[in-house]
């Protein structure tokens, strides 16, 4: 009897400790990225303050610098702006393509599809969400990039536009699934009320169901944004990766994620360059975290608005 009570207590404590550890990972990531990133901004002990290679960055210079060129001999530049713009532009162009298409698809699935067809379509969409990004990147590199180069008469198809299209395709499953969920949780009474007033199914879907699900759909857009801005490998393979501020849709582009993938393996440990990459990671982490927290509160708001 005593033993059973002890085991019961032990089990409860084990579960609690594990849950605290799991939730603590978020704070661990925050702590590590911050403490490493911040070392790019403070002078390292034992280094020559006159040496430009080991001169710490300034916060303003990092946040608003327009040149990213850590390898420039004698005068390395660590400016966030080209990379941040790269991430933001690819993601925003991707979303202008994928948001309307994804919401249209979600309305169709939620309003028109039933039974096995619905299960099949949702399964294909969800399967694609799990496709490895290198495989999608390979396809983009070999099929899409040459196609775009030929269509627009460019010397290389590895550019902002191709990267955006790949990201649009990769964010579609997220947008479709989350929007469809948002449309599905709208109570039947909304639909019945619209039908009772003589509204057609189309009017009901577009003027009643869609507005009622707006915060859930906004959450879908946010999650699509998070998915696109955090994508690394596929973008790395199709974006051209020159760290410049793109002047046209067909310029190569370098995002925050791809900079990490390209440069972390090449830097000397404990150099300013090394720590500046953690500072980049910290920026990316904050963007992703904010996006997800907003999306989560939007989903909660939609659910709450339907429970009286």
């Amino acid at each position, binding site marked *: 009897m005593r033993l059973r009570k002890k085991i019961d207590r032990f089990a409860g404590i084990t579960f609690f400790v594990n849950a605290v550890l799991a939730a603590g990972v978020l704070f661990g*990531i925050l702590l590590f990225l911050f403490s490493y990133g911040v070392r790019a901004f403070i002078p390292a002990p034992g280094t020559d303050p006159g040496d430009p290679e080991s001169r710490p960055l300034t916060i303003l210079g990092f946040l608003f610098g327009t040149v990213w060129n850590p390898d420039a001999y004698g005068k390395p530049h660590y400016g966030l702006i080209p990379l941040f713009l790269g991430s933001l532009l690819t993601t925003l162009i991707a979303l202008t393509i994928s948001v309307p298409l994804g919401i249209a698809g979600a309305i*169709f699935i939620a309003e028109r599809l039933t039974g096995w067809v619905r299960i099949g379509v949702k399964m294909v969409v969800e399967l694609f969400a799990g496709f490895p990004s290198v*495989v*999608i990147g*390979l396809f983009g590199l070999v099929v899409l990039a040459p196609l775009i180069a030929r269509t627009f008469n460019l010397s290389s198809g590895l550019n902002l536009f191709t990267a955006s299209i790949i990201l649009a395709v990769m964010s579609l499953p997220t947008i479709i699934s989350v929007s469809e969920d948002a449309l599905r949780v709208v109570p039947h009474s909304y639909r019945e009320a619209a039908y009772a007033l003589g509204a057609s199914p*189309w009017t009901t879907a577009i003027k009643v169901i869609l507005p009622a699900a707006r915060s859930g759909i906004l959450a879908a857009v946010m999650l699509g944004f998070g998915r696109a801005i955090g994508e*690394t490998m596929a973008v790395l393979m199709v974006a051209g990766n020159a760290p410049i501020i793109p002047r046209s849709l067909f310029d190569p582009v370098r995002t925050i994620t791809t900079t990490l993938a390209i440069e972390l393996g090449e830097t000397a440990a404990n150099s300013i360059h090394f720590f500046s990459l953690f500072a980049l990671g910290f920026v*990316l982490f904050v963007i992703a975290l904010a996006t997800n927290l907003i999306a989560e509160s939007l989903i909660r708001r939609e659910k709450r608005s339907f429970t009286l």
Partner: protein
Amino acid sequence: MNRTLPPPENYRRLNKKHFPSNIGFAILAIPLIIFILFIGFMVFYLFKNGINVISWKFLTQPPEKGMTAGGIFPCIIGTLYVTLISLLFSVPVGLFSGIYLAEYAPNNSITQVMRSSIRALAGIPSIVYGLFGVALFIRAFQIGLSVLASGLTLGLMSLPWIITTVEESITAIPNSFREGALALGATKWESIRRNVLPYAFPGILTGVLLAIARTVGETAPILFTGVTYFTRQIPRSPLEKFMALPYHIFVLATQHDQLTKVRPIAFATAVVLLIFVLGFDIIAFFTRMRFAATNKWQV
């Protein structure tokens, strides 16, 4: 109150007669159809270009002649090895955390913070996990670039997915199951172990299978924690570097000096990886279908 109304499927069918609406919905279907055709074309293209290279030898031999010939055996083993290590970490921790959140967690603000953090973790980009892996496993713990460091990094990344599915499948079990055991004098843990976990098992298995499918294809977290361009041997201990399928595709597609010559091998590797990923996804899908079919208590 909803019980007196016709089920929504019925009036949806009635309303399929309204012609102008049907035109509108048909237009909405176009992007979805194009998307599905695109996915189909992509899979078809990869298989068409890769399937000829795949042979028994390709699956069981190491790469030869600067990766322009030979097989991908070390990559397959490396990927399976690193996935196994990630599971050894993420399944127990995920299971225990999920049980805590579903069965023990009090409804207070601390639990709210824990839930939100775990959900937020699912949205952190995989490359950030890679950075964290470098900081924690390579530098703080001094593990060294290895299968172990990569596996643990992948395990951290898949943890939130597993916790979420464990919590969901346990919460789906009705309270009467627990009460039956408690009424007979079982302790809380005994009631969970005998009357909850066995019935939640298919749901948990689904979550683990989906986690495997996504872990197998991840590249960014292993990039700086142990994956390597080329090694003839398969890793003998978890402290050695390894080759992996997704990284091999990346290397063959972008880093190799004879890009066009190795392209068929890149396609074939992509096909092998896709078969792994889709295989686990489809097993997970059928597990979930079976789970839904056998769970008669769910109305």
